[in-house]
C-alpha cells in the first residue's frame, strides 16, 4: 500500500481490480483493429485513466491527515451535568463519550487528540485504554459515606474481627452497626457530630466458615439507611502439641496443663521429683518419656513451656539443641519466670528487665488485678509485646530465627481461675501461646489484589507456593492462566472473571484443601467507598494538570468529484474519438 493512502472499501479491492482489468482488456480487444489508425495508443491511455477513475469511485480512496484539536469528554459515573455544560462552553467541538466498562470506546478514542475525564473516573482495569492519549482527570468531590475501610478478611476463630474506617460527613446522631450475617447487632457507634470521623468496630465471630457480615447505617430512629456486606472467612485454629518441663510441680503448671488438656491438645508434662527421677503426665497422647532433648525429639512439639530453673540449668549442648529447634524449625518456647530469670543477663535470658516495683497489675478492659513480678521488660531489637493492641503488656516475645521465645512478668495466673475468672485466664494464655506456637505449613498462600471484585469484572490475585506445575481452577472448573514472577519463582499472578455474585472459589487443581474463597460484591454495595477509591486511583493515574495535545493521523476520504470529472472526460473522449477519426 502506498504510504498515507488507503481505501474505504478495502475489501472490494481485488474484485474491483480484476473487474477493471477485464473492462480494460475488453476495450483493448475491441479497439485492436484500430491500432493502425494511430489513435489506438492514445485511446488506450485514456481508457486506462477512465477505468482507473471508475475504480477509484468504487473504492473511495482516503488520505491520512494530521489532526491537532480534537478533544473528547469522557463522562464516567457520578459526573455532574453542570460540569459537562461548562466544559462544552469552554472547549468548542468537544466530542462527548460515555464510559461504560462493559463497552469498548477504543474506536472513538482513536481520533481524539486529548481527553477530559469527569465523574468518579474509569475502572482501574480500563486505564490502559487511555494510555496513548493525553488525559486530564477533573476529580469529583469525595462522596459522603464510608470512604476508607480496613477489616481482617481472614481470621481465626476466637480472634477479634476489627473494622476500622473513615466516615465522611455522617448524618448527626445516626448509627453505624456491625451485624453478623443474619443482622444480629454485634457492635455499634453513634455519630455525635457531622464531620469526618474515624471509627473502629469490634466483634468476636462465633462460628467458623465463610460469612457475610454486614455494616448497617441507621438513622437516629433505627431505620436502616444502607447496608453493606463484609465478607469474612473464619478459620479454626489447628491443635498444638505442647511439652512442659518443670523442676518441681507448681500450681501454675497444674492449671495450665489442665487448661490445655481440656481443649483436647496433646500435652506432655515432665516435672522433676528428685535427681534423675521424673513425674511424667501425658494428656491425649501416648506415653513416651522424654529424657534427651535432641533436635529430633523436639520436632514433635509445637511449643515448649519450661521454667527458668530447668531451662537455664541445661548444659550447653542441650540448650543449643533447643535454640536450633527454635531457629530452624520455628519451635515456640515459653519460659515460666522466677526471680532468677530477672537477674540473668540479657545475653543468657533473651530479655532484659528493669525493676518497676509494682506487684499488682490491672488487666486492661477488666476490673481484675493480677499479681506480677516487680519487673518490666526493656525494649530491645526483635522483642515485641505479645498483645500490641493493649496497654501495659506483661508478656513479651523475642523472634529467634523462625521461632519465638516468650516470657512474662505475670505471677500466679492460676489465681484468676480460683477467683472464677476463667475467661481472663484463657485469654492471657491464648494470646501468649498463639504468638509462639509453631505455625502449620500451608501449601499455597493466596492474596487478592482486587479490592471489590464484581461480577464480570477482572479479579486479580497473587499466589505463593512451592508446588511445581500447578494449575488453578475457578468456580466453573476452568483453568486460570498463571503468570510466574521472573525474579521470585514461587510467586504467581493471575486474573479471572467471576461469573456469579457471592462466594467464589479458586483452588489448585487436584487439591481441594488449598482452596481460596473470595466474595463477589453486588454492583451497588459500598458505593461511596468504591467511588472514593476510584477517584483516588484516577487522580494518581492521570493527574489533573492540562496536557499537550497529541497529533493524530486520521484517514480522510479524498473527494470523489475529481474522479467523476476524470471519468466524464475520459468517457467523452472515447465517445468523441471514433467520430473524429471517421471524419478524417
Amino acid at each position, binding site marked *: 500500500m502506498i504510504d498515507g493512502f488507503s481505501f474505504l472499501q478495502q475489501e472490494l479491492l481485488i474484485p474491483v481490480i480484476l473487474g477493471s482489468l477485464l473492462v480494460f482488456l475488453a476495450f483493448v480487444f475491441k479497439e485492436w483493429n484500430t491500432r493502425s489508425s494511430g489513435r489506438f495508443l492514445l485511446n488506450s491511455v485514456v481508457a486506462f485513466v477512465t477505468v482507473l477513475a471508475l475504480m477509484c469511485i468504487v473504492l473511495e480512496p482516503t488520505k491520512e491527515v494530521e489532526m491537532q484539536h480534537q478533544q473528547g469528554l469522557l463522562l464516567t459515573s457520578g459526573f455532574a451535568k453542570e460540569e459537562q455544560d461548562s466544559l462544552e462552553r469552554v472547549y468548542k467541538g468537544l466530542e462527548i463519550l460515555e464510559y461504560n466498562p462493559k463497552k469498548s470506546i477504543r474506536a472513538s478514542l482513536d481520533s481524539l487528540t486529548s481527553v477530559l475525564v469527569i465523574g468518579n473516573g474509569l475502572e482501574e482495569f480500563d486505564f490502559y485504554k487511555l494510555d496513548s492519549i493525553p488525559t486530564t482527570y477533573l476529580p469529583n468531590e469525595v462522596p459522603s459515606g464510608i470512604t476508607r475501610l480496613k477489616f481482617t478478611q481472614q481470621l481465626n476463630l476466637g480472634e477479634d474481627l476489627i473494622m476500622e474506617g473513615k466516615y465522611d460527613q455522617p448524618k448527626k446522631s445516626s448509627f453505624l452497626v456491625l451485624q453478623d450475617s443474619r443482622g*444480629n447487632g454485634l457492635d455499634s457507634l453513634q455519630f455525635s457530630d457531622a464531620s469526618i470521623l474515624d471509627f473502629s468496630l469490634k466483634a*468476636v465471630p462465633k462460628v467458623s466458615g465463610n460469612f457475610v457480615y454486614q455494616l448497617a447505617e441507621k438513622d437516629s430512629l433505627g431505620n436502616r439507611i444502607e447496608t453493606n456486606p463484609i465478607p469474612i472467612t473464619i478459620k479454626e485454629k489447628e491443635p498444638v502439641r505442647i511439652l512442659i518441663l518443670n523442676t518441681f510441680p507448681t500450681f501454675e503448671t497444674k492449671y495450665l496443663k489442665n487448661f490445655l488438656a481440656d481443649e483436647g491438645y496433646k500435652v506432655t508434662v515432665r516435672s522433676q521429683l528428685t535427681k534423675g527421677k521424673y513425674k511424667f503426665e501425658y494428656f491425649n497422647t501416648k506415653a513416651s518419656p522424654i529424657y534427651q532433648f535432641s533436635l529430633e525429639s523436639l520436632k514433635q512439639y509445637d511449643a515448649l513451656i519450661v521454667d527458668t530453673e530447668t531451662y537455664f540449668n541445661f548444659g550447653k549442648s542441650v540448650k543449643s539443641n533447643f535454640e536450633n529447634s527454635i531457629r530452624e524449625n520455628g519451635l515456640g518456647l515459653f519460659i515460666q519466670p522466677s526471680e532468677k530469670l530477672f537477674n540473668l543477663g540479657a545475653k543468657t535470658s533473651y530479655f532484659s528487665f528493669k525493676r518497676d516495683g509494682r506487684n499488682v497489675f490491672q488487666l486492661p478492659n477488666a476490673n481484675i488485678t493480677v499479681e506480677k513480678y516487680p519487673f518490666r521488660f526493656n525494649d530491645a531489637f526483635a522483642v515485641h509485646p505479645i498483645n500490641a493492641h493493649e496497654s501495659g503488656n506483661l508478656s513479651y516475645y523475642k523472634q529467634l530465627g523462625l521461632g519465638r521465645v516468650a516470657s512474662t512478668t505475670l505471677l500466679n495466673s492460676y489465681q484468676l481461675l480460683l477467683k472464677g475468672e476463667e475467661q481472663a485466664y484463657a485469654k492471657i494464655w491464648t494470646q501468649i501461646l498463639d504468638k509462639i506456637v509453631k505455625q502449620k505449613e500451608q501449601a499455597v498462600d493466596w492474596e487478592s489484589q482486587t479490592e471489590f471484585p464484581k461480577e464480570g469484572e477482572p479479579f486479580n490475585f497473587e499466589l505463593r507456593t512451592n508446588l511445581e506445575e500447578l494449575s488453578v481452577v475457578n468456580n466453573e472448573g476452568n483453568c486460570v492462566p498463571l503468570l510466574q514472577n521472573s525474579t521470585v519463582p514461587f510467586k504467581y499472578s493471575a486474573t479471572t472473571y467471576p461469573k456469579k455474585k457471592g462466594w467464589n472459589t479458586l483452588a489448585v487443581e487436584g487439591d481441594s484443601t488449598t482452596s481460596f474463597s473470595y466474595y463477589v460484591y453486588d454492583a451497588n454495595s459500598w458505593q461511596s467507598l468504591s467511588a472514593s477509591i476510584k477517584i483516588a486511583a484516577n487522580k494518581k493515574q492521570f493527574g489533573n494538570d492540562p496536557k499537550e495535545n497529541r497529533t493524530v493521523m486520521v484517514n480522510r476520504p479524498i473527494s470523489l468529484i475529481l474522479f467523476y470529472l476524470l471519468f466524464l472526460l475520459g468517457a467523452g473522449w472515447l465517445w468523441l474519438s471514433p467520430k473524429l477519426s471517421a471524419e478524417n
Partner: protein
Amino acid sequence: MEQGKIHLMKFQKRWQLLSYAEVLLYALGLAVLCYFIAKNVVISLVVFLIGLLLFILIKKPWQHNLFSTSTYVDAHVSEASFSSGLLLQPEDSLSNLAKLQRYKVAQELSVKLGLLTPPNAIKQALLVLLGCIILGFVIDKLQVFSGVDQILNNPNNSEQIQFIATDSLKGKSLVPKIETQEIKVLYPSYTRLGGTTTTDPNIKAVKGSTVQWKLHFDHPVNDPVLDIMGELKPLRKVGLGYQIQLPLTTSGFYSFKFKNEEGTAFTSDLFSLEAIPDNPPEIEILGLVQYTYFDFSDKKVVELQSAITDDFGIDESYIIATVSKGTGESVKFREEKLSFKETISKGTKSMRATKSLDLDALKMEMGDELYFYIEAFDEKQPKRNVARSETYFAVIKDTVGEQFGVEGTLGVDQMPDYFRSQRQLIIDTEKLIKDKPTISIQEFKSRSNELGFDQKALRLKYGQFMGDESEMEEAPAEIESHEEGEDHDHAEDQESMLKEFMHDHDGDNEHNLVEQHEHENENDSEPEDPLHDYLHNHDDPEESTLFEESLKTKLRKALSIMWDAELYLRLYEPEKSLPFQYDALKFIQEIKNSARIYVHRIGFDPPPIKEDSRLTGEIKDIKNYNKNESKEAEQPFEAIEEAVRRLEQLVHKESDYKENDTALFTAAGNELAQLAIDNPGKHLQVLQGLKSIENNTGRTLENYRFVQKGLLLALPDSPQKPGAKKMYVDKINSLFLKQLEVYD
C-alpha cells in the same frame, strides 16, 4: 277521639312499623353476610345488633309523628284537600267551615287511608337481604375468606395442636385433626394444689407433677407417640381417644407424632414443658446479733425467734446447737438437736418458731461457746428440700485464760515471752498498790514506770498484729507530750534521784528518745520478721486481713485502752491505770476466744510422717511416675455451629438441601433444647423453625434466615483457645528472619 284522627294514627303506626321492618332487613342482610364469612354465630349476632342500631339511627323511624303523617297524607291523597291537619286540631277551636271540612276529610280518609301505603323501601331492603344471602353463599362456595373463618372459629388457635405432614408430597392426603384435647396437670400431693385441666399445650408446673394428655382425633390414626426431647413414648388407646401420662421431672420440649391410615407421618409443633422447682424453705432469725456474749454471772439465756416460710409447706424444723469446750488442741465439740417451743404442724406455709436457749441447761461453763443454726425441711418428695440458717454464736466469757492463742492454728508461736501478759501486768499493778505503803517512794515510782514500759511493750506487740509500725496514730498527741513534759519535769527536779534507780531505757529523756528511736528502727528494719511469712504483706492496718472486721476494731480499742493504762502508770498513779488494764484484758480475752473458731473451720490433719525414712537422703526407692489421661475437648455446640455454617450456604443458595442435613438439624435441635432447658419459652420458636426444616415443612429461605439468626443469638461467645495458624512459609521471609539475628 274522632274517627279521622284514629285513622291518621293508625297510618302513622303502620309507617313506623314499616320503617323498623326495613331496618331489620338491612341488619339481617349484613349479619347473614358476616355469618357466611366468619361462620360464627356470635360474631354475626353482634354485627346484627350493631347494624340494627346503626340503621335505626340513620332512619330515625320515631320521627314519623302525626304532623309529618298528615303532611304526607295531604301530599299524597287528593281527597284530603290539604286539610288533614284539621283532624289534629281540637274541634272546638275550629270555625264552622273548618268543622265541615274536617268531617268531610275524616270520612274520605277512613276509606282512602286504608289503601294508601306509607313511603317505604321494604322492597329495596328485601333485595339487599337477598343480595347478601347470595353473595354470602358464593363466598362460602368459593372459600374466599376461608382463612378468616379458620382464625375466628379457633379462638384458641395457638392452643389447638396442629399437625403437619412430614412429607410434603403427600400433604394432600387427609389430615386427621384433633377434636378435643385435654391436658391434665396433677400436682404432687404434698403441694395440696390438686390438679388443673388446660388446653394450652405449653405446660408450666411444679417439678414432680404428673401431666396427662388426652387426645381425640376425628379420623383413625396409627401409632401416635409423644416425642419428648428425642425420647418416643407411645400413646395408649383409651376408648375413642389416646392418652399418655408422664411425670414432670425436667424442663424440655415435646411434640406429637402419628401416621394416618395411608402411612403418611404427621408431626405437631413443638411445645414447651417447664418444670418449676420447689424452693427450699426460707429461714429468718429475728432480732439476734451474730455474736452474743455473757459474763459468768449473767442470766445466760438466748431468746431465739425465727420466721420460716416455704412455698408449699414446712415439714420439719429444729435447731442444731454445738457446744465447744476447751482451747487449742484440746477443743471438744458436742452437738445437740433441739426442737422449738411450738410444735410444727406439717404443711404450714409460714410460721414463727421461738426457743429460749439456756446456756446453763446446755451444761456450758466459762469460756465455752455455743454455735447454733436452724434447719428446716419442706415436704418435697421423694427427697425433702433442706435449708439452713446462718450460724449464730453465744459465748460465756472466760477471764481466766492467760495466753493469746492464735498459735493453735498456725503452728508457730508468734508470742515471744519476753513481755508480760496483760493479766500479769494487772497482778503486778495490784501488788504494787498493795505494797505502796511499805516501800519507798522512789521504788514505787520506779516500779510504776517499769510497769508502764511493760504495758508499752505489750501494746507494741499487739500493734504488730494490726500491721502497725510502732505507734498508734490514734494515740492522743497531747497526752504524749504531756507525758514527756511530765517526765522532763521529773528529770529536772529529781535528776540525781532518778538516775539512781531509773532503768536506763526509760529514765533519761534524751536517752529515752534515743531508745525510742532505736526501738523504732528495730521495728522498721525487722518489724515483719516474725510475722512476715504468715501475714499478708500489708502495711496499712486497715487492710490487714488476719482478723475479721469485728476483731480488728476490738484490737484497736484494746490498744487505745493500753495507751491510757500506760499513761497512768507513767504518772505513778497505778490505781487509775488499773480499770484501763482490766478493760484491755477483757478485749484481749474476747479476741482470743473469737480466734478459737478457726480451729473448727480450717482444721488440718497432716499425714503421719515415717520417722524411719525421714531425712535419710535415700532415693533408690523413688521411681518415675507416669500418668496417662485422655480428655475429649468439650464442644457442646458443635452441631449448632455446623448448622449455622450450613444455613449460610443454604441462604446464599450455594447448595440445595441434602438428605444428610436432616441429621445435622436434628442434632442442632437437641443441642439447642439442652441450651434452652432452663428457659424453654425463649428458644421455642427457633426450635420450631428447626423442626420444620427437619420435617420438610419449612425449607424456605425465610425460615432458614430466621433459624440461623436464632441459632447465632443462642450460641455463647466462642471460647478462647490457643492454637496454631496455617501460614505459608516464604523462603525469602525465612531468610530475612534468620538474618535479623546476625545484626542483633
